[in-house]
């Protein structure tokens, strides 16, 4: 299990290559990568976070996932600071015996990361800067767990 909050870029391919494999326990690995989209004329993004609370919130979300599904491995990486279109923002990965647990745990992590980890995105576009608004959908996504 590994949780990282960092300004530095990470290498999604390299993380996937070494995640959850090699011990023979996992039959299923699911990974999710969140990227800055280049659409809508956005030129850059900045992510602010709450040092201290971020780490606690991510640890809690990861613990909740591990209590609910039997996972042989789990990874969360989330960046903060300035980002450009195409950049990797964050990733999660889960490993389990069967695909259902790996998929469900990855979606659970994403749903809680979206609405319960203290990150805030600000987009800089042709019309100036704007804080990304939380979507009602994202809050509603928690209801299924």
């Amino acid at each position, binding site marked *: 299990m590994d949780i990282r909050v960092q300004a530095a870029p990470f290498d999604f391919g390299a993380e996937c290559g070494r995640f959850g494999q090699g011990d023979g326990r996992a039959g299923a690995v699911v990974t999710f990568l969140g990227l800055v989209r280049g659409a809508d004329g956005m030129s850059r993004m900045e992510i602010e976070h709450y040092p201290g609370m971020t780490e*606690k919130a991510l640890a809690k979300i990861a613990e909740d996932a591990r209590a609910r599904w039997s996972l042989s491995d789990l990874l969360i990486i989330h960046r903060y600071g300035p980002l450009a279109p195409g950049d990797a923002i*964050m990733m999660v990965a889960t490993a389990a015996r069967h695909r259902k647990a790996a998929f469900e745990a990855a979606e659970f992590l994403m749903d809680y990361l979206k609405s319960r980890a203290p990150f805030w995105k600000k987009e800089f576009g042709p019309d100036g800067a704007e804080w990304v*608004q939380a979507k009602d959908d994202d809050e509603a996504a928690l209801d299924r767990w």
Partner: protein
Amino acid sequence: MIDVLYFAWVRERIGLPRERVETDAATVAELIEELKAREDRYALAFSDLRALRVALDQELSDFSAPLKGVREVAFFPPMTGG
């Protein structure tokens, strides 16, 4: 004395990321009323509480929560990570 932290547009409206506040407020809601009474920029930042979230000592909480024993209060908009 309590540390009060602001993030995202709350930080921008109030104009600082954190401050130490001398207060006898019993609840978060009372602390917000004290802050709103200070200056327009606070009144503006706290004008719509539905658009705000609060964390007490780095745990999400709510506006009716007591402040007794709390060292750090943070105000911010709904989170948009992931």
